[in-house]
């Protein structure tokens, strides 16, 4: 097909989308559930009671997530390349790595910010997957966005998952032009920074259930 409306292959669409989905599930949901669980079990309070710098625990969470996420992305990319014959440009991998780090930062920060309203670990473990699945359907992960109402797609552009999925799909299928887009950096960065600030203000180490 001609011109700038270049096609995305099915495999680029799904490997980009599912990588974004896996990142969200693996960071947003896992961090939220892990932190709320640790808080409600009293581990966080125990850490807080020690002279450990408070940020160390959170930093540990983020580092752990980066490692797990990179492993996940590597597996996804390897499978897509070796099994399904995905052939992206070499520099697409750099973009994928950059988007992965961006996504991990953003989703971890949002998860930490939300822990304050999750009073029980059951709540966290049902809200996390629900939000992830709901969001993934409006964000071009499991469904081509043009099957959805236009307003919903527009709204998704400003939520964190769609820009991530879309830019990964873009990078993996690109033939000409730059693999980097500014849009996801602005949206995900804004979400991440806002959530990070909120988390700093509201984060609590004590169990909420009493």
């Amino acid at each position, binding site marked *: 097909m001609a011109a*700038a409306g270049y096609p995305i292959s*099915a495999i680029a669409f799904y490997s980009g989308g599912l990588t974004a989905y896996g990142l969200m*599930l693996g960071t947003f949901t896992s961090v939220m559930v892990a932190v709320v669980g640790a808080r409600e079990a009293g581990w966080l309070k125990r850490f807080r009671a020690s002279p450990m710098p408070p940020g160390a625990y959170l930093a540990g969470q983020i580092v752990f997530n980066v490692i797990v996420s990179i492993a996940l992305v590597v597996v996804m990319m390897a499978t897509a390349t070796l099994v399904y014959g995905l052939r992206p440009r070499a520099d697409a991998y750099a973009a994928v790595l950059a988007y992965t780090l961006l996504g991990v930062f953003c989703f971890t920060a949002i998860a930490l910010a939300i822990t304050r309203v999750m009073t029980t670990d059951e709540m966290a*473990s049902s809200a996390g997957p629900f939000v992830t699945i709901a969001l993934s359907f409006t964000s071009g992960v499991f*469904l*081509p966005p*043009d099957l959805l109402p236009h307003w*919903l797609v527009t709204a998704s552009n400003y939520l964190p998952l769609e820009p991530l999925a879309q830019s990964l799909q873009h990078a993996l299928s690109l033939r000409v032009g730059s693999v980097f887009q500014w849009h996801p950096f602005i949206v995900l960065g804004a979400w991440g920074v806002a959530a990070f600030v909120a988390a700093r203000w509201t984060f609590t180490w004590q169990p909420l259930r009493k």
Partner: protein
Amino acid sequence: MKGTYAIVLVAVVVLVRLALRRRRRRGPSGASTTHVTTSESAREGTHNVVALVCEREIRQRVRGRMFRAATVVILLGVGAAIVIPSLRHSHTPTERVGVVGTLGADSRARVAATAASLGVKLHVTSLATRAAATAALDAGTIDVAILNGDSLVVKNPLPPTSTSSATQFVRGVAVALGVARAQSAAGLSSRQIATLARATPLAITSVHAGKSGRAADPTSIVGVILIFIMLSQYLGWILVGVMEEKSSRIVEVLLSAVRPIQVVTGKVLGIGLVAFAQAGIILVWALILARIVGSNLIHGTAPWALASILVWLVLGYSFYCWIYAAAGSMVERQDQAQTLAFPLTLPLIFGYVISLTTASSGTAAGWFKVFAYIPFTAPFAMPTLVGLGEATWWQFSAAVAIDVVCTIALARGAAVVYRRAILRTGSRVKIRELRSHSH
């Protein structure tokens, strides 16, 4: 069309009834029903314990704040998805084209013809520069820009599987303008060009009489999406629910009185009923709204295609629930459950992706048909084949039979795993231990 609604409505009403009847039984005045009094006799059957566990599960789920909030959110979301587009404009969608530079009368006519052939309205605006076009695309005021008659720009890449009129329009315009450019480059006479412009596609006939003349099958697409959403959401409940009973140690109290298989069966049954009730409510809501606003949500759907979707929804849940229950009994913390969630979803995602791709392309490859008989992928693949008219009744029955047999075997295995694993804490359960003592 009427028949379709009737079938869906009946199915949903039955499910909701079932769930509500169980809820009502707990009502304060509901000192009810013969089945409970039989439980007074010393010899209490498995059936009653399972019913009790199931009833508690339903009650707790339905009462949960998260559940109610999620249901309301989904209802609002579905409502918005149906109502808003129909409020925005009439039934025929409009394609808004921005033109930068000049566009010949011939090309203009071809664009109009493409729009007409797809049954969409056309709205053309002139734009001064490429930058203005990009801005307009980003702002969403135009859908596609034609630059100097020789290139097209859209906002987001066109998805490969899409069959929407918007995508078809862009592709059609791209082809039409490309042909026009080639024609003018070939230096043809005006008569030759006019002849070419009147070219119509050849008629296509098939050797075998087909039921589905369309390229893609919207019912299967909607069905596959529905099955996927439901399974990925509700199976997670089982994973977490089983794990919670383990981590709260209530299971030790339960198992001092009843058998493990009773607890786990009651649990998956309860969650299943809540799940189908919730899905039923959402479906009814969607259909009612669609009717009221006149949306063509499941326009022209064959009743049997819908029935097969519902059948496979139940079968898919029944099969996968045991895997999730066994997995839940082996983990002891919420975050371990979450770590497991993604890998466990992979077979679902695989089945979903191949089925959605097949449903959109309109033809099922040979390898795809194999997946319709494997219980992991059958809940997606079989309804897709049905939707495409490529499954006979005996093929359908064979797939159901295979699935049921596998489900029973899986349930047995899961019960053994559950019994061995549910009381273990602090150490990973070894496979060897799960096998030993199994009787």
